[in-house]
C-alpha cells in the first residue's frame, strides 16, 4: 500500500505535443503522469488518448522527445540525468517510432551479397560475389542481371535514379574495372541479362568502391591501388574509346563492342587502399581509406581540402545528416563514429555509437531525415540509429552471417545484404 502511495505521489505534469498530421493529434492538455513511466508506458498513454479522440484507433508504438533527446530511460531517471526540473509542465513530443514493421522474404543470391544501392525507389541494385549485379523490383523479384565482370563485384551505385526511360548504374569489381550499365524500366516478366555498355579501366588493383555524383554525369571510384579515379559516364563523347574487345578476348565469341572509358582525373594521396568514397556535392569528394584517414578532395584541383585522422582502418563512409555534411564512418572496430567537419581544429568524433560487436561494414544516412542512420556489421546485425540517443532505435537481425552492405530504400525500408547470400528488406519504417 505504501509503495503504491509512493508511486502515486511521484507524478509529473506533462503535455504531449506532436508535429504529426491530424489523425495523430490529441487535445493539448496537460496530464499528471507517473514519473516511473518508460517509453512503453508513454506510448500506451498516447494511444489511449488517441483512442478517446478516435474510437477506431489502432495502437502503434511512439517515440518521445524531451528537449530534443529521445527518451530511453524511465521518465524520472531521464529527467535526473538531464537535469530537467520535474516541477514545470513537461513538454513531451511524440513521434512515430522508427522500427521496421514487416520483414520481407529474403531475396536469395548465388553468392555473398557485397553491395546494395537503394537510392532509386523503383528498384534495388545489388552486387554479388558471383560477379553479377542484380536489379530487384521487390523482394524476391529479380528483374535484371548485370553480366560481365570477371570477379566479385565490390560496390554498386545508381548514377541517375531519376532517369525516365532508363537508369544508369555503375559497378566496381575486384577485376580492377568498373562497368556502366543501362537499365530499361519497361516491365518484363523474366530476368533479363544485361551487358555493360561501358567498361572503365585504369585501376591497377581491385576496385573497392564507387560513388556517383549527385548530378549524375560523373562517378568516382576508390581502389586498393590507393588512388581515387574520377570518370565520366556519358556515352556520347566516347569517340576514341571505342575499341573492340575482340583483340583481347579472342575466344569469347559473343563479344559485343564495348565502350572503354579512362579516368579523367586521379586523386592520389592515400597511402593504403581506398575503402569508401562519397560524392555528395558537386565539387568535393569524400574518401575513406585503410590508412586511417578520411579526406575531402577538391575535384577541380585534386587537392586535399581536409583530413580527419581516425586511428582505425575505415571500411565505410557516408555523408549526410544535418546540413548534409556530417561524416559517418565505421571501421575496423565496433564503433560507428560521426564527425562534424564544420567544427574547427578537432578530429574528435561528435557522436560514437558502440552497440555493434564487430567491424562495421556499411553505414548510410537517411536521405530525408537529419537524424537517422543505418549501419551494418559483421556481427550479423543491422542497426537503426538516431543522433538524439545513444541507443539503437532498432536492431534487425535477420542475417545469419556477416552483413556486408545496407542501405535505405524508398525512405521507409532498409535493405541489407550479407555473407548468407541474402538480401533482406525491412520495410514499414516511418521516418519523417
Amino acid at each position, binding site marked *: 500500500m505504501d509503495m503504491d502511495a509512493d508511486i502515486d505521489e511521484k507524478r509529473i505534469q506533462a503535455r504531449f505535443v506532436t508535429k504529426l498530421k491530424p489523425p495523430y493529434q490529441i487535445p493539448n492538455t496537460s496530464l499528471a503522469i507517473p514519473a516511473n513511466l518508460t517509453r512503453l508506458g508513454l506510448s500506451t498513454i498516447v494511444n489511449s488518448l488517441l483512442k478517446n479522440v478516435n474510437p477506431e484507433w489502432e495502437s502503434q508504438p511512439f517515440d518521445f522527445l524531451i528537449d530534443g533527446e529521445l527518451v530511453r530511460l524511465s521518465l524520472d531517471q531521464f529527467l535526473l540525468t538531464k537535469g530537467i526540473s520535474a516541477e514545470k509542465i513537461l513538454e513531451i513530443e511524440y513521434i512515430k517510432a522508427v522500427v521496421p514493421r514487416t520483414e520481407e522474404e529474403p531475396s536469395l543470391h548465388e553468392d555473398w551479397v557485397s553491395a546494395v544501392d537503394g537510392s532509386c525507389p523503383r528498384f534495388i541494385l545489388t552486387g554479388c560475389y558471383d560477379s553479377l549485379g542484380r536489379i530487384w523490383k521487390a523482394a524476391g523479384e529479380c528483374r535484371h542481371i548485370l553480366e560481365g565482370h570477371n570477379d566479385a563485384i565490390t560496390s554498386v551505385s545508381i548514377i541517375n535514379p531519376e532517369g525516365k526511360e532508363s537508369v544508369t548504374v555503375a559497378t566496381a569489381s575486384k*577485376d580492377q574495372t568498373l562497368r556502366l550499365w543501362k537499365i530499361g524500366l519497361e516491365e518484363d516478366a523474366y530476368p533479363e541479362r544485361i551487358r555493360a555498355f561501358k567498361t572503365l579501366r585504369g585501376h591497377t588493383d581491385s576496385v573497392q568502391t564507387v560513388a556517383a555524383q549527385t548530378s549524375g554525369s560523373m562517378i568516382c571510384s576508390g581502389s*586498393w591501388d590507393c588512388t581515387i579515379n574520377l570518370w565520366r559516364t556519358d556515352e556520347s563523347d566516347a569517340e576514341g574509346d571505342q575499341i573492340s574487345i575482340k583483340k583481347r578476348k579472342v575466344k569469347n565469341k559473343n563479344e559485343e563492342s564495348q565502350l572503354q572509358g579512362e579516368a579523367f582525373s586521379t586523386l592520389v594521396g592515400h597511402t*593504403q587502399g581506398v575503402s569508401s568514397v562519397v560524392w555528395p556535392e558537386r565539387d568535393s569528394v569524400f574518401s575513406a581509406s*585503410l590508412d586511417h584517414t578520411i579526406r575531402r578532395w577538391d575535384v577541380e584541383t585534386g587537392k586535399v581540402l581536409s583530413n580527419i585522422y581516425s*586511428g582505425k*582502418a575505415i571500411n565505410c563512409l557516408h555523408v549526410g545528416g544535418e546540413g548534409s555534411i556530417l561524416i559517418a564512418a565505421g571501421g*575496423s*572496430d565496433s564503433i560507428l563514429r560521426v564527425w562534424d567537419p564544420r567544427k574547427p581544429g578537432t578530429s574528435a568524433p561528435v557522436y560514437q555509437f558502440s552497440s555493434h560487436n564487430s*567491424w562495421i561494414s556499411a553505414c548510410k544516412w537517411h536521405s530525408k531525415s537529419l537524424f537517422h542512420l543505418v549501419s551494418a556489421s559483421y556481427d550479423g546485425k543491422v542497426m537503426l540509429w538516431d543522433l538524439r540517443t545513444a541507443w539503437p532505435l532498432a536492431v534487425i537481425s535477420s542475417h545469419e552471417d556477416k552483413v556486408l552492405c545496407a542501405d535505405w530504400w524508398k525512405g521507409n525500408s532498409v535493405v541489407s545484404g550479407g555473407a548468407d547470400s541474402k538480401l533482406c528488406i525491412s520495410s514499414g519504417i516511418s521516418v519523417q
Partner: protein
Amino acid sequence: MRVSRNDSVAAANSKEKKSKEKTTKAKSNRGKPSREETQLHKSEEEAEEENFANNVKELLVDDDESQDDESLSDTEDGGSELDDEGSASSDNDQGSDDGDGNEGSESDQGSDDGDENEGSESDQGSDDGDENEGSEPDRGAEESDSSEDEVPQRNTVGDVPLEWYKDEKHIGYDIAGKKITKKDRQDKLASYLDNVDDSKNWLKIFDEYDDEEVEVTKEEANLIRNLLKGKAPHAEFDPYAPYVDWFKWDDAKHPLSNAPEPKRRFIPSKSEHKLVVKYARAIRKGLIKFDKQKEEPRFYMLWGDDSSSSEKTGHLSYIPAPKSKLPGHEESYNPSLEYIPTQEEINSYQLMDEEDRPQFIPKRFESLRSIPAYENAVKESFERCLDLYLCPRVRKKRINIDPESLKPKLPSRKDLRPYPVTCYLEYKGHKGAVVSISTEASGQWIASGSTDGTVRIWEVQTGRCLKIWEIGEAVHYVSWNPLHELPIVAVAAGRDVFLLNTGLGNEEVQGKVKELLHLDMPAASDDSGNVASSWSQDNQHGGIKLKHFKLRTLTICALTNWLRESKAILIHQLSKKVTQRLPFKLHGLPVSSVFHPTRSIIFAATKKHVRVYDLVKQKLIKKLETGLREVSSIAVHPAGDNIIVGSKEGKLCWFDMDLSSKAYKILRCHPKDITNVAFHRSYPLFASCSDDSTAYVFHGMVYSDLNENPLIVPLQILRGHASSNGRGVMDCKFHPRQPWLFTAGADSLIKLYCH
C-alpha cells in the same frame, strides 16, 4: 652599673679619621648616635634599660608614623630630663680619651654592631668638640641636636670605665675641672608612671656618660632604622649613584705606570711546571685515576630479555641463542580441560606428518607426585645444547628495497598504441589445424596451409575464402611472394614445394606469372645426383612442383625469387629455374632460416645456434649463441639488425646484431613451445605464438641512434584459440600495413586481431 662605650677599634678609627673629616655635617651626624649610646648607661637597673632599648629597637623597626609624631612631641620632656642629667654628667668629667679597658663590658649592651660603629664616630665628634663648654643649655629636641655639635661635652672624664664613678657622687669633671654631680634619681615608681604616661618614652635614651636622658629625633630614628636594615644611614645617600671618574685618563700623557712589562710575565712559571710534572707522574703511576670504575652488577635478570646481552661479550658478532619457549598452561601437571585433546584429536595426530605432529600432548595428573619422568628430557636438553653450541647463527642483512623500484621503467601501454587487441574476424573453412599463414604484400589477401592438405586464399577484409588448392599432403608452410606484382604462393607440402599461381591481378600480371611459372621440360633436366631437388610442371594446380628429399621450411626473398628450404639449405632461383645448395657447413640440423630484408644475407638457425651467412661473399659472418635448448623459429626486424628467436622451451630471445653474439634480452613468456615469432613490417611490434593457445604481442622499438638499446615492452596476450591435440597457435603473422595480427590455430581457425 656597667659602662658601655665604644670599642677600642672604633676609637682608634675615629682618631685616624679625625684629621680628614672635619665638615660640620659629619660632626652633626656623629654626634647623634654618640648620645644615643651614652644614654644607655644611665638606668639604674639593667633589666629596665635593656627592656627599654629593645623596646626602642622594635619600635624603630616597626616604623609607625603616628608614633613618630608622638616622639616629636615627647622630645621636650626628654629634654628636660637631659637637662637634669647634663648637670650630673658634668660632674664626672674626666677628660681622657683612652678607655680601652672597657671593651669587655660592651657586649652586655643591647646595642647593635652598626650602632657601635656610629658610636665610635661619635667619639670623634666628642673629641672634636672638646673645647666646647660643657654647660648644657635648655633646648628642644631639634635645637639641642643641632646645637650639640657646637657645644662641647659636659663631662671631660674621657673614655674611662664609668664604673669607676659608680660609687662617686659625681660623674666626672667639667671643663673647668669642677665635679659634675650626679643628678638625683627619680623615684622608680614615679619614673615608671611618667614613662607610662609619656607616649614618647620609647624615644628616650639615658646617656650614662653625661648622666642625662636624650630623646631621639625623627631623623635620628630614621637613621637608626636604615642602619638596622643594613642600608646607608642617610636617606639622601644614593648607593647607586653614577660613578664619577675623577681621574681624567683622557688627558694623561703617560700611563699610570711607565715601567716595562716584567719578564716573568712572558716565561712559563716554574712552579706551575713543577706542579704539572708532579701530576703527570702521579697519573703515570696510577695514583690519580679519573674515571671511577663501574661496579659490576652482582645480579642479572635470569628471565629478562636477552636482546641486550650482546653487551656482555665484547664480541661484535655474538648473537644470543634463542630462548626456549617457556612452559604454558598446557604444560601444567593439571591443566584446564580445554587444553586436554580428545581421543579423536590424538588419533588424528597419528595421521599427521611427523614434523607437524605436536611434540607434547597435555595430560592431567592428580598430584605432582604422580607425574612420571619426562621421557624426552634428556633428548630435548641434548638438542638444546646442540642448538646452542653447534647451530651457526648468522645475522642476515636484509635490504629494504621497494620491489616496485626494481622494475624497469616501461612506458605505459596506452602510449604504445596501436597494437592488436581484440579479435573481430575469423576465417573458417579449414578442416585441420592451420599450420602456416602468409599475408600478401598489400594486405588484401592471406594464404593459409593446413594439415587437411589444402591451401586457401582468403580475403582479409571480409573473411571470404577465395581459392582452395587440394595439395593432397599435409602442408608445412605457405609463403606469398613479397613482390606485390607477382602474386605467387609457395607451398611446402610433404616433400615437395609447389609454386602456385593465385590468379589474382589483371591479364598483364597473369601473363607475367604464367610465363614465370612455365617450365620448359628440357631445361629442367635435373642432375639430382648432387642437387636435392627436381623441377617439374604441376598442371593440376597450375604451378611448379619441386621434389625434395626432406623439407622443413621455406621462405621467399623479395629480391631474387629465391626459395630456400632446409636439410642443408637449398636456394631455388625461380627466374632461372635453378637450385643451388649453399656451400656452408651447418653444424646441426637446420630448423629455420630467414633472409635479410635488404641485403643478401641469410640467417640459418640450427637447434642451438643462429648462423649468419653472406650469400654474395659466400662466407659466415656471425654465429649467435642462443643458449636455448631448441630453437623453433626466427624472425628478422625489418631494419635487419635485430632478430628474435623463439624456442621450444617457451623462451624468446632478442638479438641485437650490433651488440654481441649473446642475446640482448631473453623473455620467458610462454609456458609451452613457441611455434612462431613475427615482426611487423612498419609498426614497432613483434609477436610470438605458442602451443599454450596464446599469442603475445610486444612493443619492440629499435632506435636508429646506436647508443640506445632496443626497447621491449610486453603489450598484450591474445587468447581465443582452442587447444587441439596439444597444439595451440601454430603460426602468427602481422598484417603488412595495419597493426593487426593473424593467428593460425590448431583448431582450424585463423583469427584476425585488430587494434
